[in-house]
């Protein structure tokens, strides 16, 4: 029996060794990703400050543990941990007013806290994914479990200087339905940090605060740029050279591979596709207790192997209704997103047009209706496409009445394309885009400029018509002399 097992064991251990080897390679491959970590104590607490790492040094897991241990052994045992989804040192460079424009900095609260603290510690580069162990290490060293909070619940908590506590505040970074810029998100996070710190100040409990993230927000581009595709530099290599272009192309190819390529949602009547819908982002948000809670419906609607439930959809010559059924959206067990379209002949333009009459959200018996016919229309033979169909940013969808439940919802469809009639095959027809070639501003500028040009032309014409009087010129006669005396 033993002899039979050893070959198996040997093969298993061989596989394990190869696997571990691969893991290590992958780990060293990720070695160039770093996440900054900022730690400080509340003002009034004097602890011996630790020496920051030398410039460019990447702090590993062991070193991070020793920093934390030193800080927590002599410092306060109440730890406030601000954990952002993503962060890189470039965020501070770009948005922290580092170029002499301190007034544009989006981190006023953070900078104030670091200034007033007696022992701030900034680790610009903690290797990732070692930095994810921060919570685990804090948990071990404080011997408590982390409490996930937000600023409202913090004011209800009573902290004790003697008993250790680990309070974790999650801060977003990724682009939500609002497509807020990184600057706005970081500014919002900094405000939350300010709120938390002021609440902690009113509680007058000394604390240690840590600000870090779970992932880096940017890839380390510099290394790959200098290394080039084959590694090393070529003689007389200048910026924008062939190697840089190659590395840029490779990076773009990698990004494109991550981009979404999937087919549209098709509702078929029998064998023929009747309604088609495509988008890169479908998200709905509801306003609950002063905050917008968002739910992204894209993964349950689009993707390889994803087939959304279209029960209730109908389709005929003049009306088309696409019903997308979801479960467990924002606390509602059944949630429906309905697109109601209609087409008819319009006499003045002598053409058939279709309109997206309504976008309805049906949940738990309530129906929130958005009117879309004002802006979403296209000739009936074509599909309608728009980069952004929302009800809050350049709104295209409008709640039906001012008392409609739709006023508490925000819907946002990104890169949206829909066709409800005259679908041939399984491709969209020509896409009538919501954005025209000239914007209203361009037209206004063109008209005013052309008017000015016309005026200028006419004026020039008149001036060029003026001629010197030459009726009495006599080139052969004596020159005119004007005597000085009377």
């Amino acid at each position, binding site marked *: 029996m033993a002899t039979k097992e050893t070959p198996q064991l040997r093969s298993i251990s061989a596989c394990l060794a190869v696997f571990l080897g691969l893991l290590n390679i992958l780990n060293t491959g990720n070695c160039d990703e770093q996440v900054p970590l900022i730690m400080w104590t509340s003002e009034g607490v004097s602890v011996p400050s630790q020496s920051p790492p030398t410039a460019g040094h990447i702090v590993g897991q062991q070193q991070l543990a020793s920093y934390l241990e030193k800080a927590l052994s002599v410092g306060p045992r109440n730890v406030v941990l601000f954990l952002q989804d993503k962060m890189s040192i470039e965020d501070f460079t770009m948005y922290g007013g580092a170029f002499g424009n301190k007034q544009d900095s989006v981190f006023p609260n953070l900078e104030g806290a670091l200034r007033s603290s007696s022992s701030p510690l900034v680790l610009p580069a903690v290797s990732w994914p070692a930095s994810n162990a921060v919570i685990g290490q804090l948990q071990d060293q404080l011997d408590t479990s982390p409490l996930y909070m937000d600023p409202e619940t913090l004011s209800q908590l009573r902290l004790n200087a003697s008993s250790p506590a680990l309070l974790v505040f999650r801060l977003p970074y990724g682009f939500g339905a609002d497509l807020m810029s990184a600057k706005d998100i970081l500014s919002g996070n900094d405000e939350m940090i300010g709120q938390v710190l002021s609440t902690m100040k009113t509680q007058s409990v000394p604390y240690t605060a840590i600000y870090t993230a779970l992932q880096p927000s940017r890839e380390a581009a510099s290394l790959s740029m200098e290394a080039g595709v084959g590694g090393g530099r070529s003689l007389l290599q200048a910026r924008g050279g062939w190697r840089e272009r190659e590395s840029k192309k490779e990076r773009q190819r990698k990004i494109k591979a991550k981009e979404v390529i999937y087919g549209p949602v098709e509702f078929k009547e029998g064998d023929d596709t009747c309604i088609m819908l495509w988008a890169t982002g479908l998200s709905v948000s509801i306003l609950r207790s002063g905050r917008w809670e968002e739910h992204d419906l894209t993964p349950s609607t689009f993707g390889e192997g994803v087939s959304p439930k279209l029960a209730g959809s109908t389709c005929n010559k003049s009306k088309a209704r696409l019903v997308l059924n979801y479960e467990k959206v924002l606390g509602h067990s059944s949630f429906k997103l309905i697109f109601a379209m209609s087409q008819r002949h319009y006499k003045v333009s002598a053409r058939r047009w279709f309109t997206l009459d309504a976008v309805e959200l049906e949940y738990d018996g309530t129906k929130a209706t958005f009117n879309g016919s004002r802006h979403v229309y296209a*000739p009936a033979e074509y599909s309608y496409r728009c980069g952004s169909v929302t009800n809050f940013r350049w709104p295209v969808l409008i709640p039906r009445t001012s008392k409609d439940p739709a006023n508490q919802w925000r819907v946002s469809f990104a890169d949206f394309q829909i066709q409800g009639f005259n679908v041939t095959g399984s491709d969209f027809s020509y896409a*009538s885009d919501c954005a*025209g070639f000239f914007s209203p501003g361009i*037209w*206004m500028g063109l*008209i005013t400029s052309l008017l000015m040009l016309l005026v200028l032309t006419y004026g020039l014409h008149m001036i*060029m018509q003026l001629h010197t009087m030459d009726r009495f010129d006599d080139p052969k006669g004596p020159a005119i002399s004007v005597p000085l005396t009377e």
Partner: protein
Amino acid sequence: MLLECMMNGHAILYTGVTVAFWSTILIVGTCYTIFDLGFRFDVAWFLTETSPFMWANLGIGLAISLSVVGAAWGIYITGSSIIGGGVKAPRIKTKNLVSIIFCEAVAIYGIIMAIVISNMAESFSGTTPETIGARNYQAGYSMFGAGLTVGFSNLFCGICVGIVGSGAALADAQNGNLFVKILIVEIFGSAIGLFGVIVAILQTSKVKMGD
């Protein structure tokens, strides 16, 4: 032979510009038709998406500028004649200043209307056609129309009075009895400018811009 066809630089320039303009329109129109994109040519979109402020200010600008062009042209024509005729018959100079005053009145109509119309421009807080509201669109278009009305009528009134005044000065230089009768012609010419002002005031009487 080609040189004979091209008379002067002006003709080349104007024919070139006209050809460019009409060919652009023709090609754009043809493309719209061929590609069945005629539905994108939407005049209503243009009229509702452009800001009423543009129309209002164009009206104000045109009111004063076209009136001044008319007045200036008239004065230039009359003034040259008075000055030229006054060399041989200095007695005409005082009487014929009346023609100049008639031309100047046209410019005064223009500036009064420009001030009246610009006082009606108020700010409003809408950004989409629905929130701007019909009243603001009506205000914008009325102000544009009033500006055009007063501008063009004053333009032609000024030219008319100028040419008549020039003839009056030269006739007066020949025979002093003629001036009084010719003045009546000038008065009729001047009345046209007044008509323009009256109609412009009627157009802007119902204008109410703002929220």
